[in-house]
């Protein structure tokens, strides 16, 4: 199996396991406020890291290129409360314009 398929199947199986376990374990297990707080913060930390790494690095190097401009436009769109598709398409068009016409 290719690494791509291993990731697809492995991530899918574990994602379902988490969803199913949640509906099956006793309520008291995860009711602790620490667990609730960590649970809120985990996606924030991971998504922030994903934004940073996908915008400013290539393999193991820092790169400042059209992606940073695209993400800057995305930030402006989010501040202006634009809907998600506008944010993504705006970023993509910005980076495409800079990439093709610089």
């Amino acid at each position, binding site marked *: 199996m290719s690494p*791509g398929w291993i990731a*697809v199947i492995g*991530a899918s199986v*574990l994602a379902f396991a988490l969803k199913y376990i949640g509906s099956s374990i006793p309520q008291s297990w995860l009711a602790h406020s620490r667990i609730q707080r960590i649970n809120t913060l*985990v996606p*924030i930390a991971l*998504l*922030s890291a994903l934004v940073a790494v996908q915008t400013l690095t290539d393999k193991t190097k820092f790169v400042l290129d059209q992606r940073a401009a695209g993400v800057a436009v995305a930030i402006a769109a989010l501040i202006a409360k634009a809907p998600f598709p506008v944010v993504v398409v705006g970023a993509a068009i910005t980076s495409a314009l800079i990439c093709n016409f610089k």
Partner: protein
Amino acid sequence: MKRDSFTVAFTVGAYGIAFGAAAIANHFTVAQACVLSLLLFSGASQFAVVGVMGAGGSAVSAIATSTLLGTRNALYGLRLAPILNHRGMKRILGAQITIDESTGVALAQSTDEEMRKGFWFTGIGVFIFWNIFTVLGALGAKAIGDPSAWGLDAAVPAAFLGLLWPRLKARETWAVAGAAIILSLSLTPFVPAGVPIISCALISIIVGWRK
């Protein structure tokens, strides 16, 4: 409430276009994009799988990042379990559609009956639209050739940012976001791709534990 469910299902489902296109841009196949939307069915985790591997990360780091992002679904399931009270096949189907949106609409209702309806309508609705739009996005991206050659590569970080933005409220959340950006960028030159991202889970554990 049905109209709420439909609106949420359609607008969220439409993000599937961005996912389908991002999968192709990161060298996944149309089939792989569709399997992720059908089986994994959790937006942030799906973007993480294609994003981490597209950036040169291993399958293991892609799976780990996706799974850490999926832990919140377990807590949604825990929160909803006494209201939904599912058994057997219904629990399996219900588990698959336990995501941000179905939980959000369910918890916004006032009676148990409405919560159950909100959960099922929204979950099934998002599932249907998300999968339809994933196919459209993947086929569309395939049709224009290699999307990264067009310089469309800001789409993936912008999608992550769009998923992150509504979660940034209290000062603590901004601090965690800032720390994660600094830690992931500082680790990037020294460790394999994907590891800087997973490492940031530690920040949330430390901050969540201490307070």
